[in-house]
């Protein structure tokens, strides 16, 4: 299959362009559809084809080099030395794949959940997919910023038009927070352009060495953009609002992809380009990460709303990842990247689970459930898998990622491990607590509903094939990474090694210059 795809010369040379812009093309074509059923199937077809086209990226990925692969480079705006420059390496390729996976899952998740303006929704969904894949593939800063900001408009609309009761507030908050964060980055990017002698070429910018003061300023300018996207404590307040109000597909995209862009930004730009500043600021970032881990977990414990609970658990989990990245050792960074992937899978899946049950009851409150085991046993099985994956149960993907970060932390500075373990323990507590209350809580808290109805009188049925397919897509990865993390780690080995030499090399230079 993969060979077949790559044997087409055009695809072989332009695979990234095709993967990025296929959804946009699909969105443009969708304008001409009017039948709702056809719209859904067409959007699904586009995203599935995109997913299939993205598979060779991972399967044919050359794991022996850290160089960028599937590179495409054309002059775009010669006056500013801007290129249309795409490529993936071991750090980004997994997220391109994850985005295309989430793409079709989101279409499935919106199949019946979106009741009005379905066509516009699907168009928006496809447009944002183009922007997201573009962010991970762009190797020119101008192009990167273009995709990065272009994401805002569709997400603003997804939350604001198709969201819940308080959607407008959430949408505006999301929009302003993320925009305010990323505009300083624009100044940073341009400053970098002149510092490096007039180039937006990301690999070239990585080669350059900048003075420490310059690095520190730039690190700060980029930090706000990425920290708000992650979101790190104390920039996380937009996240619960956005998650709660967004429609299911919006929540999945937010959790699975958008949050990853913050940590991806740290990995791709902050660490290799400003290594001295990264090391200088790392204690602060680690402290913020630890606060996020503990504080996020406690907040999650206190939530009555399922979506809020998962949102705060995201804050906690993303704290693990930022901590992993900023301890600068192989286990920490690889664990961080793997955990980014894992968090995308499990949290995306958890939001999908919430969305599925929300469609039936129109309630997000944990106390309204509790009949899960009785009425929707298959659904409960999936929920169970994702809950234990989220808390890092052995055999699931979360376990591997958290274990690697723990190892990394242990090598780096042992007391960190205490906080991480506390975070994991709290995580187990709130996830299982939520799962238990949703599944078996009814016998304690509520009377029994009729057969097939909850006690609010809503008709309840177990998941159908469409929902099952979407969930199984995530389950596959939960166990695949859980039992066979080797291939995933292998993809990133070379790139992470290279990244760490860049950081370490600069440290040596820095130390030497002090001596």
């Amino acid at each position, binding site marked *: 299959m993969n060979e077949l795809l790559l044997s087409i010369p055009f695809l072989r040379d332009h695979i990234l362009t095709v993967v990025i812009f296929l959804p946009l093309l699909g969105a443009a074509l969708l304008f001409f559809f009017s039948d709702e059923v056809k719209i859904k199937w067409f959007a699904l077809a586009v995203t599935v084809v995109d997913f299939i086209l993205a598979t060779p990226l991972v399967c044919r990925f050359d794991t022996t080099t850290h160089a960028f692969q599937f590179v495409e480079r054309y002059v*775009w*705006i*010669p*006056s*500013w030395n801007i290129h249309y420059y795409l490529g993936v390496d071991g750090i980004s390729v997994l997220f391109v794949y994850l985005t295309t996976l989430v793409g079709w899952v989101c279409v499935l998740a919106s199949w019946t959940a979106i009741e009005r303006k379905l066509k*516009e929704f699907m168009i928006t969904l496809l447009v944002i997919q183009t922007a997201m894949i573009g962010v991970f593939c762009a190797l020119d800063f*101008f192009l990167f*910023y*273009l995709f990065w*900001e*272009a994401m*805002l*408009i569709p997400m*603003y*609309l997804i939350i*604001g*038009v198709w969201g819940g009761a308080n*959607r*407008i507030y959430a*949408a*505006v908050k999301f*929009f*302003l927070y993320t*925009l*305010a964060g990323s*505009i*300083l980055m*624009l*100044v940073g990017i*341009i*400053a970098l*352009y*002149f510092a490096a002698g007039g180039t937006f070429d990301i690999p070239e910018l990585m080669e350059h060495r900048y003075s420490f003061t310059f690095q520190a300023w730039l690190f700060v300018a980029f930090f706000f953009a990425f920290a708000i996207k992650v979101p790190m404590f104390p920039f996380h307040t937009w996240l619960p609002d956005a998650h709660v109000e967004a429609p299911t597909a919006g929540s999945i995209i937010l959790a699975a992809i958008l949050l990853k862009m913050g940590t991806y930004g740290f990995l791709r730009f902050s660490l290799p380009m400003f290594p001295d500043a990264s090391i200088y600021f790392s204690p602060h970032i680690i402290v913020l990460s630890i606060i996020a881990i503990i504080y996020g977990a406690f907040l999650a414990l206190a939530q009555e709303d399922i979506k809020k609970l998962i949102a705060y658990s995201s804050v906690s989990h993303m704290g693990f990842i930022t901590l992993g990245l900023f301890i600068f050792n192989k286990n920490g960074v690889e664990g961080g990247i793997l955990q980014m992937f894992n968090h995308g899978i499990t949290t995306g899946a958890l939001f999908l689970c919430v969305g599925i049950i929300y469609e039936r009851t129109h309630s997000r409150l944990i106390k309204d459930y509790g009949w899960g085991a009785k009425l929707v046993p298959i659904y409960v099985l999936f929920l169970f898998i994702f809950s234990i994956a989220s808390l890092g149960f052995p055999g699931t993907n979360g376990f591997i990622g958290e274990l690697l970060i723990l190892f990394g932390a242990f090598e780096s500075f042992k007391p960190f491990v205490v906080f991480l373990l506390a975070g994991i323990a709290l995580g187990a507590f709130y996830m299982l607590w939520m799962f238990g209350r949703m599944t078996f809580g009814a016998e304690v808290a509520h009377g029994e509903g009729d057969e097939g109805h909850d006690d609010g009188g809503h008709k309840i049925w177990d998941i159908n094939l469409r929902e099952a397919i979407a969930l199984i897509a995530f389950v596959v990865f939960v166990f695949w990474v859980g039992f066979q993390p080797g291939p995933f780690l292998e993809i990133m080995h070379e790139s992470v090694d290279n990244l760490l030499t860049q950081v370490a090399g600069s440290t040596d230079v820095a130390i030497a210059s002090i001596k």
Partner: protein
Amino acid sequence: MIFSLKDIVAILPEITIVAGACVLLLAALLIPKGERKDVIAYFAIGFVALAAIDTLIISGMEKTTVLGGMFVLDGYACFFKFVFYIGTILSILLSLNYVDEEKINVEEYYILMLFSLSGMMVIASGANLLTIYLGLELMSLPVYVLVGFLQRDIRSNEASMKYIVLGAFSSGILLFGISLIYGLTGTTQLVGIAEALTDATVHVPVFALAVIMLVAGFGFKIAGVPFHMWAPDAYEGAPTPITGFMSVAVKAAAFAALLRVFIEGLSTVQADWQLVVALVSVASLVVGNVVAIAQSNIKRMLAYSSVGHAGYALLGLVAGTAEGVSGVMFYMLTYTFMNLGAFGVVITMRKGSQMGENIEDYAGLAKTNRALALAMLIFLFSLAGIPPTAGFVAKFYIFMALIHQGMIPLAVIAVLMSAVAAYYYARIVMIMYMREPAGEFELARSRGLVYALVLAVIAVILMGVYPTYFIELAQRATFIM
């Protein structure tokens, strides 16, 4: 002085417009009253197109100075003239339906626009402070009248009154500054001023006063803070197509003069004006964008946003390099499309009893009129500077010029203000897309509107995605290397 053929050729576009306007004044009498307005409008567009062709042909010429050094024909002038042509044609297209709606039954409306256009063209080619001043007045006088064209509307009367009083006042200040510069340097020729200024004895305190007066005089025309107080009222009261015309073409012309005077004439004393211009720019950015948040009338909001945009463009002048100049030129080109596009949507909303000026009137527009709401979304996000739209590239250009000169604090203020700006632009999008409509929308429908909006959307997206051609055009056209 004897006119040579070269002189005539160089000012052929201006002759075309002025002669065209005069011909139309007379020809109007021959056309039956019923269709007079529209016919005149089409002919006006025709004359602008003719002038555009003239300009296109002579733009290939070497830089020439004609009419005894008063008038210069270079790439810079031609670029700005094209901005004015585009602004004028779009404004006329937007007016076609609006004048019927407002029952403006006078064909002079279009003819005055042509006269104003000729003034702008003179400004763009002005190589002498006298030419530039005359151009400014030739541009402004018709606009004063156009602002007050809704004779029965008190807002329009008041707007026009305020505009002319403050406009005349500002040109008085400008003239006083010019007279001082003339006294100090002995010439009003821009090149001559630049030469004279290399002599340090000219550099007396009075000179700084003269420069400040020039900044104040031009500041009025571009509506920079603190010389902006006329703008919100004039923008609100004027007929909407004229508001668009003022915010785009008049502003671009004032920038054409500003750049020419300050970069060509006063570049040797950059230190004298840089701080003043930077202060005006920052004040415009802050006041324009912050006050725009509080507006409930969309024309007023766009007026304050236009004050903010003047602040961005001024940053290009502060940078003072070729990059800055071409940045401002590109900014004016993109601003023409996105702002006239936004005004086009406002005009479309004006129908019958529906004024379409209140921001709340736009609630739920996306539910019933998808295409119009999408167009407005594109214009607003372009004004906010969000990629992939032209507005982003324009801001990017200005920031490049600023940061290249190491003016990072200014760039930081500018980007922070663009986040503030995003708030009120996004608010309109929110109202259009996320609110329920209060009732049925009555929309003006005319071919002119559709053409103008489609053209603006295409331009905004094209210059956002593939700006290469336009950037190179602006770069080639700057008068400094």
